């Protein structure tokens, strides 16, 4: 199973691809769905990809059976991936959609961006991967990273880590005075004065298992 996200009608959602062929039995598929449920409790979207040549009527039946099965696990089959084996507009009520090549699942390369100069007001730094800033981040400056963010100097701006859904991303700051912190979309604006243990001190910010932002002083 491969997980990736796709933009459809300007809404983004994660979908899982279920690869089947003419030999796939319903039991195999059911065990796969159970594994998926255990792995990702919130997934809802499923997409069928066909591995080998199938007879259209039996394929159609198979899809209907999988659909009923998936419904039991709270999963919904959104569409069928068009490839050399599946053609035609609709099979068993599910549309056959051709993904543009840019949306095909790709391995993302995590590259760390290192910034040695102060990040000034109004500047936005965006990176796919981690970001390390050895100097300060001014008011109204933004750091947006899909991975972790490490700031060794003062942080007075906005830090947005885990952009794109990485809930395990963390933020490390040398002198904490940020305006806005966010991990994987869970954000908090810091308007009131922080307690002395956190204000202008070294902190670590992470999401706990209840998806709440935790700010913990680093013992340096």
């Amino acid at each position, binding site marked *: 199973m491969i997980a990736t996200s796709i933009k459809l009608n300007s809404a983004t959602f994660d979908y899982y691809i279920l690869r089947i062929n003419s030999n796939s039995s319903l039991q195999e598929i059911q065990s796969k769905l159970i594994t998926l449920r255990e792995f990702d409790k919130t997934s809802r979207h499923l997409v069928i990809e066909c591995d080998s040549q199938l007879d259209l009527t039996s394929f159609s039946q198979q899809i209907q059976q999988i659909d009923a099965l998936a419904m039991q696990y709270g999963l919904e089959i959104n569409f069928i991936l068009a490839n050399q084996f599946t053609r035609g507009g609709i099979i068993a009520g599910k549309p056959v959609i051709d993904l543009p090549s840019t949306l095909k699942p790709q391995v993302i390369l995590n590259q760390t961006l290192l910034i040695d*100069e*102060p990040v*000034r*007001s*109004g*500047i936005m730094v965006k990176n796919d991967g981690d970001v390390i800033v050895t*100097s*300060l981040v*001014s*008011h*109204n*400056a933004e750091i947006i990273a899909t991975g972790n963010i490490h700031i060794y100097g003062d942080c007075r701006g906005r830090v947005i880590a885990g952009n794109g859904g990485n809930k395990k991303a963390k933020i490390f700051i040398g002198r904490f005075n940020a305006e806005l912190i966010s991990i994987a979309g869970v954000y908090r604006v810091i308007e009131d004065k922080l307690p002395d243990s956190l204000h202008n001190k070294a902190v670590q910010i992470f999401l706990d298992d209840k998806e709440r932002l935790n700010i913990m002083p680093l013992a340096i």
Partner: protein
Amino acid sequence: MKQKIRGQMQLKHTIVGANMAKEAKVIVVTSGKGGVGKTTTSASFATGLANRGFKTVVIDFDIGLRNLDLIMGCERRVVYDFVNVICGEATLHQALIKDKNCDNLYILAASQTKDKDALSEENVGRIIAELKKTFDYVVCDSPAGIEKGAFMALYFADEALIVTNPEVSSVRDSDRILGILASKSQRAVEGREKIKEHMIITRYNPERVESGEMLSIEDIQDILRIPVLGVTPESQDVLQASNTGTPVINLVGTNVAEAYADIVARFLGEDKPMRFTVAEKKGFLKRMFGGK
């Protein structure tokens, strides 16, 4: 301690500079915020450099709201302006106005009537390149804001004087301008050595700083992290100077004039201690009988 270190660093800078051929330097005087003292500083800084023997030209980039010519006292001698030269209606030689006090100083006034749209990177670049052939220093007086006029003024800069008042909104805007200098100037776009940034704190009132109303030099340095070239005190002489059409550095003996002379000296590499940064301790008699 801080000043000693800066003095040593500046000494190194002059030794290296002496070996290289002297190329003209473009200096932008900018701030982001309006009304902090950019035009006052441009006029006095350019006059100070000219008085030291360097051929200096000061350009007003505030098209439509020009006042550099007023401060320099040459508003009645403006025949051709910056936009006339850009559009080819006049040569640089015809537009440049020689200062009445100093032979080394020339002024290029902005247009009062034309639109800012006349400015573009190519034609402004052409004029600055031509000026660099005959002058040692080209001082660009930037308008307030971050729009086209300000952008053109800072685009070709080699060094920048960031003028800041010791209060929060001015410091914030200066921070924004520093960001633009580091990312959108020609040096940044072409990947060359970055613009050398200097801070000038104007309208500094030591009493208000000590009472906590105004930001101190250390506070401002903590936020902006660039070296302080100088501090000018709040003074009524500035208004008097602009009323009489002379740069305030020419009012010899006043605090502000001394401060600007110090700034020019430090810019050229001399080590001068900071003055006018500590509140005067009023003697007994002064406190009894009032007085500043």
